């Protein structure tokens, strides 16, 4: 089964700007520590006759999910590690996509998967040891059913007729995927940012199906400030003349709005210190100056990030996924507003890692969750990793994060 993404299709390689993001030591496909070339798989997990129940009250079917796996499931089926991706992520965690030539996936030709530094033979999430799974979220645009998929009832893309989805729905879909793969219990679930919230939701929703939950750069709910940034991002998309109330598929789409949303979101992923260090007030040598063009290095960087994002992401998916991020509140969902009561459900070991300069999911919010675990009488590991990379640190600080993951994954089952 295949469900090719119907994204904007321009080729990212036509953009001359180099990726300014530090990607030290990308593992080539023939490296002994790379999972090599990968091919995503698709699976139908719900049908029109047997649709998936959603938190919002509605149903959806069919549901197709794109996922990748690395390593080998043990005979005892006890070595599965589920990785949950963040807002703009996909199922392609590690290695080099054989299908990078497919429309909207050109970015995969330049770099390995988004967490290749962490996943592979001998790496922190060691594919010699663990069977690693990652799936694209419901409502996404990388092969899993989402607003850009064709609605079988109309023969046209869903657009805004796609139902609202939640972090809880995502985790339920992942659980159905595990059922299909014959995996009853996870050795661990790991994620950063919105993926970290999925790792937390796993511990809460399926306490008997997960042994270790690793929550990186995420807390049980987004702050008011975070809600505000998401709101402005969506506003930019929905007020773009190309948005056409979400029915833009095949007609360009709200490219400018999506780029602005991404530019702004990117600011929240960095820190003041990190931006100062990376760009300062430097200007591009080629910039004419004296007008309103792209002049400062930081402007150039954000412009590039915005453009590159438009080439690979669907604006409607951006709306749906940020909304899910807004709505997620673990305490409301599992403790009637009481985080300690919610934590009382958790049976897995939990590790929470914050990053000192992260102002999207701050160390204080992460610590609050850790203390709530203590209050609930549950063991908790909480580390605040010193870093100037802001929220993005969970992807960039590979040495400390790798050490923590390696050890925590190797610890005894609860």
């Amino acid at each position, binding site marked *: 089964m295949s469900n090719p993404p119907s994204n904007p299709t321009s080729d990212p390689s036509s953009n001359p700007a180099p990726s300014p993001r530090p990607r030290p030591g990308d593992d080539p496909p023939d490296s002994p520590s790379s999972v090599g070339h990968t091919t995503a798989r698709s699976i139908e997990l719900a049908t029109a006759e047997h649709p998936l129940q959603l938190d919002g009250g509605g149903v959806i079917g069919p549901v197709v999910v794109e996922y990748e796996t690395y390593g080998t499931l043990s005979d005892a089926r006890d070595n599965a590690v589920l990785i949950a991706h963040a807002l703009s992520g996909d199922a392609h965690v590690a290695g080099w996509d054989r299908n990078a030539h497919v429309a909207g996936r050109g970015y995969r030709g330049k770099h390995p998967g988004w967490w290749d530094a962490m996943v592979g033979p001998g790496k922190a999430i060691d594919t010699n040891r663990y069977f690693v799974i990652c799936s694209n979220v419901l409502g996404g645009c990388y092969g899993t059913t989402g607003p850009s998929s064709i609605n079988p009832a109309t023969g046209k893309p869903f657009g805004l007729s796609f139902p609202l989805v939640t972090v809880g729905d995502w985790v339920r879909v992942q659980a159905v995927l595990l059922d299909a793969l014959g995996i009853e219990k996870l050795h661990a679930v790991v994620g950063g940012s919105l993926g970290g919230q999925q790792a937390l939701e796993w511990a809460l929703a399926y306490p008997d199906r997960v042994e270790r939950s690793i929550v990186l750069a995420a807390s049980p709910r987004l702050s008011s400030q975070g809600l505000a940034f998401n709101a402005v991002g969506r506003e930019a998309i929905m007020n773009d003349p190309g948005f056409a109330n979400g029915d833009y598929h095949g007609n360009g789409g709200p490219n400018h709005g999506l780029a602005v949303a991404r530019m702004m979101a990117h600011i929240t992923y960095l820190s003041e210190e990190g931006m100062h260090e990376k760009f300062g007030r430097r200007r591009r040598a080629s910039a004419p100056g004296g007008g309103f063009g792209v002049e400062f290095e930081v402007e150039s960087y954000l412009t590039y990030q915005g453009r590159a994002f438009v080439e690979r992401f669907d604006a409607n998916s951006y709306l749906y996924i940020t909304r899910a991020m807004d709505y997620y509140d673990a305490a409301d969902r599992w403790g009637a507003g009481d985080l300690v009561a919610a934590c009382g459900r958790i049976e897995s070991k939990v590790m929470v890692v914050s990053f000192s300069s992260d102002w999207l999911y701050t160390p204080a919010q992460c610590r609050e969750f850790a203390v709530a675990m203590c209050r609930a009488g549950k*063991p908790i*590991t909480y580390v605040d990793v010193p870093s100037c990379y802001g929220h993005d640190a969970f992807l960039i600080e590979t040495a400390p994060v790798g*050490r923590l993951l390696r*050890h925590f994954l190797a610890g005894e089952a609860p």
Partner: protein
Amino acid sequence: MNPVDSLDRSRRLLAQLAPSFSSMDDSALAALLAPEAAPHDPAERWQDAIIESILPRGASVLDLGCGDGKLLARLIESKSVRGQGIELDADAVFACVARDVPALQSDLNAGLRGFADGGFDYVILEETLQTLARPVEVLHEMLRVGRRGIVSFPNFGHWRVRLDLALRGRMPITDRLPHRWHDTPNIHLFTLADFRHWADERNVRIVEGHVLGDAGVRPLADGDDLFAREVLVMVGGEDA
């Protein structure tokens, strides 16, 4: 000052602290005053064995300033405790993760804000109190969060410390207090008598005590204001 003068002066000073010093012969006194060879490996803290022996199986234990998690790992292994550490130093927390000991990175000077009253059977504060900016607040928090507290600290009232300060007029340096005044983490040094005074004032009962004396580890006894080098006490509130 020649050694004989020094011995005599030491004897006169010490005799005022405890009569037993005046009857000591010169060679015994000289041996006592000789620079110490550390009787215990500082890495293998004597307190750990005592704590292990007094904790009941299956207790819940919060270790404040748990360091690399060695004690908690030992207690989880031998006493099946429900252990949780709190530690400020990131490297130490990494070591806890490597030991499979749950540790929460946090500054004790910020207190145990958010922790539930009586959330743990025992709260341990090993060799940490004297390093805190607000030690008494942490003691109060310890007794709020734990039914019992286990506290260990160097006794700044030990005779050698007093003699050192009296004779040299400089901040004492001993094997248990090895730092110089300006590079010590021990910013709130206190004596066993100070601790007893705090406990009396707060109606905190010393349930049991152990000390590292000049001849090794033994139960807390009268006169230990002078003879204990390090102290470990279990404390509880009025009803404990």
